């Protein structure tokens, strides 16, 4: 799909391509092993699924498709507004928006309910002011979409904002001197900058919504809105029909692969990279009013639910939680797991993205793009079962292997997000600076150290923040491993929630959220500084 002209300008980097292909093969092999381990453990035949799969696929696809489209639209509008507007606390707001996707879904769902629910802030205000309620929009398909758009739209906005903030100042200066209107500026400068992120983002968001399990079940209103994951969970846990579970999982993987294939096969789209020291160029009048409106709406829709999580948590006695030694153990475990996973994710994402950027062949690009999404396509309960069986096959003690499995699983989980962050700028560098790099005769390492790294420092920070916060996450993947001594903050929160201690859970949720925002505000800045110091 890429013309030979591009191939000629790309530096010759066989090692990068080889490393990426090796890694891609390793990930594919791991997934195959997981499924094989389950098949090998299965005894007896499948009792057959009692689920109407075509119906389920249709419903889930509609929901996931709507989620993807809405999230991208909302994300683009929000990124556009945030790129233009400057106000005190802007970094904080950007951090808060970005933190939605890495916050445990259940926390976001309860945050949403405390704003939009029957007993939420809006209903209570509306009843006090007008004596009438807005009903309960937070359940059913509208509830699922609302929750998903909050989670995914804000994430899309964060990724797109990074691209908008990287538009070279020269382009902006030219645009400004040409007197582009707000609309022309959007279509001529902004749209080309964010187009490169759309395939990856669309695929991630679709897959997240397609496989999302607790949110869909909780806000969906009942089995009518469930996803295939529920059926797979039932097959593994309740029916213990392992063969059936593998069939269902394969169905899900096949459907997801179509989406992944479409996203991975698309030609790279030129984008810009690095931070721009853009001259302030405000849009005038109507456009600015629109930006303020978009931001205002998003703050009410997205930030308020998260804010309510903070309010609930802080008012329910954080002191009691931080006084517990187990809280500090959990914090230490979370930090350790999060850091290790983030570094592993960085290594995996760089390997894949550098290899992908180094090749001009469409088929190789596609092959290197697909494994990043593997984790999203494979049902969590199948992975956790498969990992447990593999660890046993290897003769390892389950509880010894548990932290390593968690780190590996978390890295794979964060990988598509990391690829969406690092992929577009790395491709752009290879394509726009390729000629220069070739003519200078830079080695692969020199290319990375003196060209790529300084330009993507900030993106690495965003990626590390994402991967780190994701990986504080839940330990579902080691569900069977023996988890009593291995406690992370999210797990501690779910355990508290599961034993009536809603207040403790709320306090931990607030602490997690604060940590996440700090990571999202701090890490990109830190890495931008380090990368520039290196230059």
């Amino acid at each position: 799909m890429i013309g030979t002209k591009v191939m000629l300008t790309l530096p010759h980097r066989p090692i990068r391509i080889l490393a990426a292909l090796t890694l891609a093969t390793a990930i594919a092999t791991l997934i195959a092993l997981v499924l094989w381990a389950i098949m090998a453990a299965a005894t007896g035949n499948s009792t057959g699924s009692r689920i109407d799969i075509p119906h389920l696929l249709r419903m889930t696809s509609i929901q996931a498709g709507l989620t993807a489209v809405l999230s991208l639209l909302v994300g683009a509008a929000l990124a556009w507004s945030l790129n233009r507007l400057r106000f005190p606390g802007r970094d904080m707001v950007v951090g808060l928006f970005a933190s939605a996707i890495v916050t445990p879904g259940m926390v976001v769902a309860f945050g949403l309910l405390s704003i939009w629910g029957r007993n939420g802030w809006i209903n209570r205000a509306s009843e006090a002011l007008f004596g009438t309620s807005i009903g309960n929009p937070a359940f059913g398909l509208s509830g699922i979409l609302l929750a998903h758009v909050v989670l995914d739209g804000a994430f899309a906005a964060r990724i797109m904002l990074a691209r908008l903030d990287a538009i070279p100042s020269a382009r902006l200066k030219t645009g400004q001197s040409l007197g582009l209107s707000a609309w022309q500026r959007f279509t001529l400068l902004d749209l080309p900058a964010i187009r490169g992120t759309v395939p990856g983002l669309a695929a991630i968001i679709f897959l997240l919504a397609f496989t999302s399990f607790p949110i869909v079940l909780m806000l969906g209103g009942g089995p009518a809105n469930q996803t295939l994951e529920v059926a797979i969970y039932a097959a593994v846990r309740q029916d213990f029909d392992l063969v059936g579970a593998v069939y269902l999982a394969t169905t899900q993987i096949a459907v997801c692969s179509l989406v992944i294939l479409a996203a991975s096969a698309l030609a790279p789209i030129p984008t810009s990279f690095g931070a721009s020291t853009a001259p302030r160029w405000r849009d005038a009048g109507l456009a600015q009013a629109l930006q303020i409106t978009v931001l205002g709406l998003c703050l009410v829709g997205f930030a308020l639910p998260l804010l309510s999580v903070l309010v609930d948590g802080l008012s329910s006695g954080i002191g009691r939680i931080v006084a517990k030694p187990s809280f500090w153990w959990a914090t230490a475990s979370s930090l350790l797991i999060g850091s290790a996973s983030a570094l592993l994710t960085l290594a995996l994402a760089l390997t894949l993205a550098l290899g992908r950027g180094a090749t001009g062949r469409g088929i190789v690009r596609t092959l290197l793009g697909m494994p990043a999404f593997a984790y999203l396509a494979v049902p969590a309960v199948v992975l956790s079962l498969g990992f447990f069986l593999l660890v046993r096959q290897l003769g390892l003690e389950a509880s010894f292997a548990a932290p390593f499995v968690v780190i590996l699983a978390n890295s794979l989980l964060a990988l598509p997000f990391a690829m969406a962050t690092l992929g577009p700028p790395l491709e752009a560098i290879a394509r726009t600076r390729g000629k220069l790099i070739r003519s200078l005769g830079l080695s692969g390492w020199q290319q990375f150290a003196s060209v790529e790294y300084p330009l993507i420092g900030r993106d690495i920070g965003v990626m590390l923040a994402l991967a780190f916060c994701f990986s504080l996450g839940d330990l579902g993947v080691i569900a069977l491993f023996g988890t009593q001594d291995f406690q992370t903050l999210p797990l501690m929160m779910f355990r508290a929630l599961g034993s009536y201690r809603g207040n403790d859970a709320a306090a931990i949720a607030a602490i997690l959220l604060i940590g996440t925002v700090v990571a999202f505000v701090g890490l990109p800045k830190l890495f931008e500084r380090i990368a520039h110091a290196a230059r």
Partner: protein
Amino acid sequence: MVKSTRLALAVLTGLIASPAFAQDLPKLTIYTYDGFAAEWGPGPGLKAGFEATCVCTVEWVAADSSIGTLRRVQLEGASTEADIIVGLDTAIAGEARATGLFADHGLDLSGLSLPEPWTDGQFVPFDYAHFAFVYDSDTVATPPKSFEELIALPEDFKIVVQDPRSATPGLGLVLWIAAAYGDRAPEIWAGLKPHILTVTREWSESYNLFLTGEADMALSYSTSPAYHIISEGDDTIHAAIFSEGHLAQTEVAGILRSSDQPELAKQFLAYLTSMDGQKLIPSTNWMFPVTDIGDALDPAFATLPQPAKTLTLTDEDIAANSQRWIDQMLAAVQ
């Protein structure tokens, strides 16, 4: 195993862990669900209590759910390290028995005080509560007194229940309605449908929807109010008692046939049902003890209303029909 998770974490941090010296004491490995082994659960107290009487060490290995413990031993087969599983319940006891992995307990359990006399030769009960809908008397002045009264309420009276395929109480409700109404169960589910705000994956999600005021009642346990009374001094949460009678969830423990410590395992189960063991259960697991522990039972438990009638289903009934009952429920609330 306790040591090895710590060891793995230490390896990760680059610390040099001083390997703990293996003790020569016999070790009793018990699989359970993680809420049971958690710091506020009964696990730590039972371990300390039993270790004080035996010359042994107790090790809890917690899976994420009680069904998870059963699945783990099924996957491990005879090579399992587990001597005992603690925390299965009467709804899955039949399936667990059918795996052939469990041995007879050999205990005399005639002295237990349960709603129904205990006759099971393999599983030992250690706590119970009835499934029940809970409500808040501040917002619900007159709770429904039966499924039929609930169905007759205006549609904006909302309840939250759990998916029977993923949550124990969710399955409990399916069995409860089947036990109470038999062939009329689909009709009851269809009547409940407009009241069901949502069907959650876990009990905790339902319960918190109820606590945050999103729903008027949540499917939980008759003992849930005791937590609020004892831990929060809040006496507004109550269980609605239904005239059809209630199904009880009895949690059980069983010895694995493959255990290399069968005598020790038997002693543990005897301890679990003894006065000393039972005293630890109510205010850690929020269930009724199976032994009369007299004054050691917090008075809050004594004030809880008890259903006039306890419904029961046999293992055979559950094994033969639960799939069909779940399908009926899913079809009705679809």
